[in-house]
């Protein structure tokens, strides 16, 4: 396949991949962040100690984490059809991608928040702060660099998942690589999509690392030394 033939397919494929990653990452943040916070708060020794809630949420997250993505995708087809109206295409792929990313991110949020010094929580409680205040003014801002790192890891994993989703007709770079590179032995298509995926992952990682470091430095040595 020549470059002229490939080019018109490449751009939409890139766009599809980005579209799927961004939307599913956004959904993972919106749902996974509160879940991660809830896991910490309801833990024994947490501010909202609640064994039942903790066990249930923990179990859901664990099950979600342990299902291989390819199986999750197939299993969710009826659900996806119900929500989106179809189970094919980038939009439909966002459903299993988000469902897979939510528990993944929730665990990373949990770990990040656990690392916040309990002394800070007590300081805010001693000022008369409520649990909600503690979450808003202490837990989230203080763990922000770790949360950004967690989001980066999630986004990188999602790039991998979109490629897999391509195998079942989600579109995107994975779809291109499988249809042309694998099934039609177009080695150059395979190589180009590979390079683009590597570049994409690298850019996400660098961007995430940079942001996390900038945020962490704010609290360390802001004078630029």
């Amino acid at each position: 396949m020549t470059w002229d033939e490939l080019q018109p397919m490449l751009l939409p494929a890139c766009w599809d991949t980005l579209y799927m990653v961004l939307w599913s990452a956004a959904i993972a943040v919106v749902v996974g962040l509160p879940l991660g916070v809830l896991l910490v708060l309801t833990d024994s020794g947490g501010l909202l100690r609640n064994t039942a809630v903790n066990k249930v949420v923990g179990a859901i997250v664990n099950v979600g984490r342990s299902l291989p993505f390819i199986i999750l995708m197939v299993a969710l087809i009826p659900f996806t059809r119900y929500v989106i109206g179809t189970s094919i295409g980038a939009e439909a792929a966002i459903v299993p991608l988000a469902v897979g990313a939510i528990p993944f991110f929730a665990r990373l949020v949990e770990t990040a928040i656990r690392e916040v010094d309990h002394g800070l929580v007590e300081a805010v409680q001693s000022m008369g702060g409520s649990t909600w205040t503690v979450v808003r003014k202490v837990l989230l801002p203080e763990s922000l660099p770790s949360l950004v790192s967690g989001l980066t890891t999630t986004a990188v994993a999602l790039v991998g998942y979109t490629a897999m989703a391509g195998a079942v007709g989600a579109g995107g770079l994975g779809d291109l690589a499988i249809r042309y590179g694998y099934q039609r032995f177009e080695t150059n298509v395979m190589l180009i999509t590979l390079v683009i995926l590597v570049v994409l992952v690298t850019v996400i990682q660098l961007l995430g690392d940079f942001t996390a470091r900038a945020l962490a430095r704010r609290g360390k040595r802001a004078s630029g030394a």
Partner: protein
Amino acid sequence: MITTTGLRKVYHSRGRETAALDGVDLHVREGEVYGVVGRSGAGKSTLIRCVNMLERPTSGTVEVAGTDLTALAGRSRRANAALRAARSQIGMVFQHFNLLSARTVQDNVELPLEILGVSGQERSRKALELLDLVGLTDKAKAYPAQLSGGQKQRVGIARALAGDPKVLLSDEATSALDPETTRSILQLLRDLNQQLGLTVLLITHEMDVVKAVCDSAALMKGGRVVESGTVTELLATPGSELAQELFPVGGEPSEEGRTVVDLTFHGEAATQPVISQLSRTYNIDISILGAAMETIGGRQIGRMRIELPGRFEENVVPIGFLREKGLQVDVAPVGAAAGRKADSTLVKEAAK
């Protein structure tokens, strides 16, 4: 200002029960600096954390500024609005400062005001005023990581004062600081106590801290307060462990059958030549076994251990003379009596 009655706190861990507080009655008067000392594990932190209900007492009551916090808190583990409002009137400073690293110094000081719902402009005015009070105006825009330990604690103190509390709690606020910085932080606490009429309850394991700033002190052991009172009262209590720790005067009698007397001078009496008067009036030889002069809570206090010839019965008159001169006189339990005491503790040790 702060009163605890029959305060108990029992921790359950792995089937074992630890009574961290075992019936503590504490009374801190308005406007005083009150120090609680004791060994590690004595229950000091548990006590101070019970005062603002960060730790819920198992039983007993805590009253701060006339409000019964134990009643306010009710049964629920979570802090209700009433308890939170009461807490905002009690400042707290911590050993490890507990400043938010993602916020500037000024924003840290503003945090309690945010919680109180104070408007932005008013917050920043108040924060800058407090930073001025603790001498950190130029650090308002710095982050905690850029400050020294002493500066961090100043921020911690400014933050604790943001809600205009009547009471300040301090758990080992100077334990992570060097002696020089410790002194300056203690001076700051003393100044705030005098300028703002702030009541301060502080926990420490350093007697020097008590000496430097406290009006009153309590000694804790195994979850109980074993001694308490104003520093002056404590120094006047015969056999007080705190007094001895605060103000050690040592010295053993030169031989059997002599009377050893501990003298404590306050104010006026400190400047009179009492010993030479005593010697001249009764024509007796007096040996000085040990002596020290200290400034405690801003007052000059002297202590001296002297030895008079003859047994106690023969020295009733000279001792009366010393009392008349306004000195506090304790006949020291040294020699035979102390020897017996030492034996009995040895026996106890062996029995374990």
